[in-house]
């Protein structure tokens, strides 16, 4: 049976979501930290929200390839621009186009 956050702790949700990455004002931060010292459920929520951000940031480091020829299609719409691109900067498919 899954456990869920007790209703009495829902008032801390906004604060926890902002606390994990330093977006919470100092007075709210102190109040939340006092609550966290006595609430393991909210501590778990802080930990897993931090892990959520960590995962998204780690995943964002995986490279995303630009579609082939995207620069050529763009510069075709901008007369006079793009002729100065260095061959080294062009993918093979574009250099051959």
């Amino acid at each position, binding site marked *: 049976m*899954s*456990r*869920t*956050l007790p209703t009495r702790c*829902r008032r801390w*949700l*906004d604060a*926890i*979501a*902002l606390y*994990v*990455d330093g*977006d919470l004002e100092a007075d709210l931060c102190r109040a939340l930290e006092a609550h966290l010292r006595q609430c393991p*459920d909210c501590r*778990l*929520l802080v*930990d*897993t*929200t931090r*892990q*959520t*951000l960590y*995962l*998204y*940031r*780690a*995943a*964002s480091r*995986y*490279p*995303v390839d*630009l*579609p082939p020829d*995207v*620069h050529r*299609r*763009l510069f075709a*719409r*901008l*007369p*006079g*621009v*793009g*002729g*100065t*691109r260095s061959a080294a*900067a062009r993918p093979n498919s574009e250099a051959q186009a």
Partner: protein
Amino acid sequence: MTTMTPPSQPISEQRFVQVVEAYAPRLYRHLLRMLDDPQDAEDALQETFLKAYRHLSRFEGRAELSTWLYRIATNEALMHLRRRRSTPLSLEALSADDTHPEEILLTSWQVLPEQALLSAETRQVLEDAVAQLSPALRAVFLLRDVEGFSTRETAEILGLSVDAVKTRLARARLRLREALARYFEHAEETRP
């Protein structure tokens, strides 16, 4: 397809080419996450640079280049999403942005190794969860937490107050955490 008229003030062609080459990969990645469709992302990327080309001479020196380009790109993405939607948002969908998930699952996934956390399947779960956010929450989360802009810069890019960004950021983070909690709980239950 339209051909853009060159800007009234001449700009360095070499400068613009440098801007395109430096920012195209980052902006395309951002647009792909915003739109969840490669063709739409490329269309929005093209429109972003066409608008940047038209206005670059007026831009120079007024603000951070990256902030300015992300503002154009994010607006393009939001326009694409508006065009994609055939019917207006329901009241339920609008109010959903103002609430947290009804249940917050208390699942810990810290025991999983990093390799498992970043498997192709997990990365797909991350992408799907972002795609489920409303465009308003998605834009804030991607700019602040994935692209790494500050809260103030994110507010500037989106034309929002800092408080509005924080409100949306909190909702987005908790919804994504909830999606991952459900995924990891299921993964733990089905592990041999």
